[in-house]
């Protein structure tokens, strides 16, 4: 038996190091057909199963390997930002918020995937496609940086049983904006008379946290005619009196029910999931929240009766009876610059956005995300016939009029959103005694300052 000496230890260590160096090229060769993919963990386990199945199918079909990880979206966002800062990036990563893709495209940190999207783009919802088509401040032009996979709009979620218990009939629900909102007030009054002291009529988010309050303010602003706040050329129109009037009306009409006690006071400081939790606990009659994750979660928890008790409702008409466009966002994967296996990543991306593959994937996830391909939505009964929640949601996000989120037009909107400029105005009005118009003026001034940092060269 040999004796362990200092020299033998050093000799062995050097030998191991040398063996590692020799072995490394072999590993690199093996990795050439492997793509590292970071994906958002679903709200329900079925979403994750559907993704894994799609990966398995691709691996079998291509012979390539997808080394994937599933991470909750907030944590994934942190991971993605850190990775891009450090320059150690995966080959593909899913984007599940409004801000990362436009801001990173602006900074030229994402790979142009126009060659992947262009051949199939005609099949997708045209009004939503700008959500993948961002401005690059280095190349001074727009390009596709995100592959469209999941479309999301913001519907209303209503407890039918609470409406009835509050003395109203769900069939009497009006279909114009203000009347629709006012409908829930007597419901709350009726419930309070029955001793339900903590149930509120409406549960929209007017916090300065996450994307929900941005969706809320924009929907109200558009309902009052402020759609032109940001135009497709990326310009801000705070000088448009119509836009200003709409913003003031949105502020007042979001804040007044709050002041009158029809919205839970805590909603000014809710976190992203607080409204979902409160709605699931039947603490508010109506919620305005993106996707049908609320309903899908009930189904996944085995609460079928509650699932059937929820009414999913698209946007009502404007007060003058016109159809209102829903703001939609498209989510999907991007390829960060510095990715090592771009070929495999692009091939997988092409595979995923094939209509048939994408349809199966989204159906597997219980339809929480709608399929952004109108023709396939119309031809597959899963989307428009099998379930009333899904039908309402898909009609709102795919069939009826839509516009993209404003972040698609100019990444400045991402900073306006991250700073929650408009919800700060609502808060100023509610808590700091500022009148509606000066509060909006202050918000406009800040938005203008931010937009000045993101000039977009016009073609």
């Amino acid at each position, binding site marked *: 038996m040999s004796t362990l000496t200092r020299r033998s230890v050093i000799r062995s260590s050097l030998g191991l190091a040398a063996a590692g160096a020799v072995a490394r090229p072999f590993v690199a060769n093996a990795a050439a057909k492997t793509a590292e993919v970071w994906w958002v963990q679903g709200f329900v386990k079925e979403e994750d199963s559907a993704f894994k199945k799609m990966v398995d199918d691709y691996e079998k079909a291509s012979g390539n390997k997808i080394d994937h990880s599933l991470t909750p979206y907030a944590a994934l966002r942190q991971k993605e930002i850190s990775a891009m800062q450090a320059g150690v990036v995966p080959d593909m990563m899913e984007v599940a918020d409004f801000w990362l893709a436009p801001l990173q495209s602006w900074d030229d940190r994402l790979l142009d995937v126009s060659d992947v999207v262009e051949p199939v783009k005609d099949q997708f919802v045209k009004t939503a496609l700008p959500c993948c088509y961002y401005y690059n401040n280095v190349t001074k032009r727009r390009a596709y940086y995100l592959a469209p996979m999941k479309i999301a709009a913001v519907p209303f979620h209503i407890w039918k049983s609470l409406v009835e218990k509050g003395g109203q009939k769900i069939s009497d629900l009006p279909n114009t904006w203000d009347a629709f909102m006012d409908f829930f007030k007597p419901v709350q009054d009726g419930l309070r008379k029955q001793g339900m002291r903590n149930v509120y009529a409406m549960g929209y988010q007017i916090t300065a946290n996450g994307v929900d309050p941005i969706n809320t303010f924009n929907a109200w602003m558009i309902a009052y005619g402020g759609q032109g706040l940001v135009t497709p050329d990326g310009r801000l129109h705070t000088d448009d009196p119509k836009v200003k009037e709409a913003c003031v009306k949105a502020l007042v009409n979001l804040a007044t029910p709050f002041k009158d006690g029809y919205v839970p*006071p805590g909603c000014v400081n809710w976190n992203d999931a607080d409204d979902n939790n409160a709605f699931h606990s039947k603490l508010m009659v109506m919620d305005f929240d993106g996707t049908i994750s609320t309903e899908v979660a009930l189904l996944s928890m085995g609460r079928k009766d509650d699932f059937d008790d929820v009414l999913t409702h698209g946007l009502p008409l404007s007060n003058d009876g016109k159809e209102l466009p829903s703001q939609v966002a498209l989510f999907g994967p991007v390829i960060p610059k510095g990715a090592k296996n771009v070929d495999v990543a692009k091939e997988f991306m092409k595979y995923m956005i094939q209509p048939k593959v994408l349809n199966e994937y989204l159906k597997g996830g219980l339809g929480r995300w709608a399929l952004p391909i109108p023709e396939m939505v119309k031809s597959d009964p899963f989307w428009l016939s099998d379930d009333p929640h899904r039908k309402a949601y898909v009609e709102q996000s795919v069939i009826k009029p839509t516009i993209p989120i404003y972040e698609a037009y100019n990444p400045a909107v991402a900073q306006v959103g991250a700073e929650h400029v408009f919800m*700060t105005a609502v808060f100023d009005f509610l808590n700091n005694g500022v009148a509606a118009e000066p509060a909006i003026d202050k918000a406009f001034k800040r938005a203008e300052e931010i937009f000045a940092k993101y000039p977009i060269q016009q073609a």
Partner: protein
Amino acid sequence: MTSASAIELGRPPVQRQSLWRYWRGGLQGSEFTWAIAFVVPYIAVFLAFVIYPAAYGLWMGSNPSLYSEVFSDPIYLNTVVNTLIFLAFGVNVKLFLALLLSGFFMRPGWWTKVLLLIFVLPWAVPALPTFISIHWMLNGEWGLVNNALWILFGVDGPSWLNSRWLALGSAIFSHVWKWTPFWTVILLAGRMSIPQEIYDAAKVDGATGLRRFLYVTFPLLANLYLVLTLLATIFLLGDFNSVYFVTGGGPANSTHLLATLGVVRDMLELGKPQLGVAAVMSALPLLIPLVIILMRKLRTAEVQL
């Protein structure tokens, strides 16, 4: 050749040998090689996980234009004020309570030991679920606190997280509740290290109760208390959890601290890590003097009764 010049000639080799011996720490031959082998991993870890990240952070925040962007942020000034308030109340309330409680836990008896065990629980449980639970407990409509107020007294409690001052106060309270046990245990250890003979002598001189605390205990703990205050200030400047999970920086971004503004808003939401680092580094003018004072106090700590 004079005798002096002979000494001069002979000195350099002697000096070189002494320096070399000093550098080797008196170790001979293979002992020195083994010492190097054991130190190298530590140095590598120190370089990789302390020096490199700190230098990288400094590099990230080195562009002066970042600071003009940070200072022009409409909520930056509020954030600095919040940070100072958080420091003033968070550190002092926590340490003063810890000083008093450490005296209480010096009392003899098994029940004080049981109480101490219960008392340290908030510190022992993980921070995240604790602060998230507090966030839920403080919910104005459905939270435990206001429901308890309603059931016990029939009154509606305030919306704890809806105004800047109540929300900031809630975050400070949560921080104090969570961290007081830790500092109490340290001060308790400090008190236990004071020799009983000193108290006996003081008793002979007629010092009891408050006089004993003022003229014996506190002077002996003063240096420790000061060092703990400096340490607590440094820790609290980097505290993220108390505000992020209790108030989320809200309402309307009015309760952010420099740490949450830099990390949550600038780094993660805006996706601008450099801007986040600059926001956090704007606390350096306060942090660096604190570290220097702390180092000096640790070197010169002595007690005068």
